[in-house]
């Protein structure tokens, strides 16, 4: 097989048994790799009713057939499991250099089951695979753990690990690889912690076979083209925080727990401010010409200190505008803390914003928390984040997530998310296509299972009014399916979903790598299969269309001013059309006919 390494590594953490299994060629052809392959393994092997934090849950690491092939931005891997945050399936993806090591060691996926009696880490040195005691490393933050594991294994090893948040089963704990990149969402780090698995270290020295290397050389040409587009230039220079300006101007930068879409201090936390104040250098993942990562340092003389990576735009929103913090140094510090403790900045932020509103409403008070949590209070937010990661005091409750906490206070609608996962930084009331994606995503409120920035904000290929529902069900479906296939291939969504010809390029790469002819239509069909599989597995767990909801704030409380004033999301109408176009039942379940058409069994 070209593209795939042909081996799945299976590790039973309860017994310590390690096995290699040849990758089933038909499985790979139908479900590709990454998110698709991982989800199919989960579909076939997961007890849908299992507690996500029990040994019964399955944790899968997977790269894709285009990972490490030379295809543009192909340094990604995914973590697939049942989420302890939402109870749904999830696929959390990350970049950096760990994915390249993962693939060159010779594996398409690592399937982890059971629970180790004592803390361990998995050391993979090409064909040599062993579980090693991690007692001395348990408790360390992700940077310390990364260093310690490298010291014990190999200086060239690449490490993915959890911090104290994962060990303490924080429901939005992340897996951090290369000491700063995060498979952040859905609590995948807590699943790893529940298995007593501190990390996975990999050193790989093998190559990937591709069918037509000459055709793949076109990657260089495409990369050169992309570098010259607005995407390449602007993101390389400003990183994703460029979105602060764009979303703020469009009145969709979530502010004060999504009450509004404009943050007055946006200029204090945007890409330009990062360049002027904290940026050390732009960073890239493996095989990427965009360099959107930010390596930063809080300047001397600030009341905060530290050095690390970030923030990305999603953190500028979640721990900035949405909690009314307009201090870049404080925001950057919060980002470092989340990275070091191993937590998703997005759900951490959506939890904090819910806490601030609950505090304002008098539903949480100083006695509950230990201190006040008022809008814009950066120092107490920093305190709270540390308490969450270390499961101390009120942090233990907050670590169960904002949806849990708001529900406990009798106001679940004050958590801004879907299926218990916080939204990304695109206000649903001002971006109706994105609202529908949030509601129907199998993983809850995230932007990686589809985003509509290109048509709704950039007007590419055709401008679509972001404030209306017209054409949005079809758009949401297209973008969700695109996202599924991009993540199954082991690619980054940026170049493939933010330039007009992204999926066309992907089809050409896929053909060159695998040696089988794939059209753009074939590629989109594979995305549709994966997305339907995810919804079908969610249905086995117990999720239906009744869970495709948005908080009342999105459907009943309008934007009060600026672009989109008076707008709300008319979700019921959108869902009806969406389910029909998907070929699902009226209650949002993939129909037998649709599953048969896609060959899902």
């Amino acid at each position, binding site marked *: 097989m070209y593209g795939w390494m042909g081996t799945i590594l299976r590790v039973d953490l309860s017994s310590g048994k390690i096995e290699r299994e040849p990758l089933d060629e038909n499985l790979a052809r139908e479900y590709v790799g990454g998110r698709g392959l991982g989800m199919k393994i989960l579909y076939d092997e997961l007890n849908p009713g299992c507690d996500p934090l029990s040994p019964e849950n399955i944790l899968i690491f997977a790269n894709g057939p285009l990972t490490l092939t030379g295809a543009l931005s192909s340094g990604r891997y995914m973590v697939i499991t049942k989420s302890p945050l939402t109870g749904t399936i999830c696929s959390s993806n990350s970049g950096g250099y760990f994915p390249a090591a993962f693939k060159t060691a010779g594996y398409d996926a690592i399937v982890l089951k059971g629970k180790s009696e004592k803390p361990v880490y998995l050391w993979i040195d090409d064909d040599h695979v062993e579980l090693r005691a991690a007692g001395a490393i348990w408790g360390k933050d992700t940077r310390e753990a990364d260093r310690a594991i490298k010291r014990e294994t190999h200086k060239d090893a690449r490490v993915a690990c959890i911090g104290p948040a994962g060990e303490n089963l924080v429901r939005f704990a992340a897996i951090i690889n290369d000491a700063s990149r995060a498979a952040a969402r859905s609590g995948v780090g807590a699943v790893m912690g529940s298995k007593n698995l501190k990390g996975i270290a990999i050193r790989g020295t093998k190559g990937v076979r591709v069918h037509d290397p000459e055709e793949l050389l076109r990657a260089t040409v495409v990369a050169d083209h992309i570098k010259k587009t607005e995407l*390449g230039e602007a993101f390389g220079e400003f990183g994703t925080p*460029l979105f602060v*300006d*764009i979303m703020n101007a469009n009145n969709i930068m979530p502010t004060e727990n999504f009450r509004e879409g404009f943050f007055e201090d946006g*200029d204090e936390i945007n890409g330009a401010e990062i360049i002027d104040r904290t940026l050390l250098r732009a960073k890239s993942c493996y095989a990427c010409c965009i360099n959107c990562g930010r390596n930063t340092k809080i300047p001397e003389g600030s009341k905060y200190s530290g050095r690390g990576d970030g923030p990305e735009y999603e953190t500028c929103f979640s721990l900035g505008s949405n909690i009314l913090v307009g201090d870049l140094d404080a925001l950057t510090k919060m980002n470092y803390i989340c990275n070091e403790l191993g937590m998703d900045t997005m759900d951490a932020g959506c939890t904090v914003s819910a806490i601030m509103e609950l505090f304002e409403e008098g539903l949480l008070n100083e006695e509950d928390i230990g201190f006040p949590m008022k809008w814009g209070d950066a120092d107490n937010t920093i305190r709270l984040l540390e308490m969450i990661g270390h499961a101390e005091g009120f942090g233990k409750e907050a670590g169960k997530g904002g949806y849990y906490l708001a529900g406990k206070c009798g106001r679940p609608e004050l958590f801004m998310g879907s299926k218990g996962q916080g939204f990304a930084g695109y206000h649903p009331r001002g971006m109706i296509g994105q609202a529908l994606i949030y509601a129907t995503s199998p993983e809850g409120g995230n932007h990686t299972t589809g985003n509509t*920035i290109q048509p709704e904000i950039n007007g590419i290929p055709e401008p679509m009014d972001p404030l209306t529902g017209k054409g949005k069900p079809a758009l949401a479906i297209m973008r969700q399916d695109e996202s599924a296939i991009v993540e199954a291939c082991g690619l980054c969504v940026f170049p493939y979903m*933010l330039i007009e010809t992204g999926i066309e390029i992907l089809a050409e790469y896929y053909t060159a790598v695998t040696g089988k002819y794939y059209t753009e239509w074939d590629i989109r069909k594979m995305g549709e299969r994966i997305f339907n599989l995810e919804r079908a597995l969610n249905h086995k767990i117990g999720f239906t269309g009744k869970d495709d909801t948005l908080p009342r704030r999105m459907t009943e409380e309008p934007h009060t001013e600026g672009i989109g004033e008076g707008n709300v999301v008319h979700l019921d109408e959108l869902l009806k059309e969406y389910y029909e176009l998907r070929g699902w039942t009226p209650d949002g379940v993939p129909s037998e006919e649709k599953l048969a058409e896609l060959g899902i069994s």
Partner: protein
Amino acid sequence: MLVTIKLAGPLRKLYKEPASRKKEEAEIPEGSSVGDLLEVYDVPLKSVRLITVNRLKANVDTRLSTGDEINVIPPAAGG
């Protein structure tokens, strides 16, 4: 008349004053439009995705008044 212009992201290199980082005041003739202002700043229209005046959507024909704040936003992507 005096207006304030904000040039987001890569457009900020077009500020007249090198010290301007977030915005800058511009003296333009009474009755000027957004298009006139963009011409003063040599902003290429292909690099503009959204223009707002006082946080409401505007276009090159929008007439400006003293004290207006004009925000010029590039696309989030290209291709």
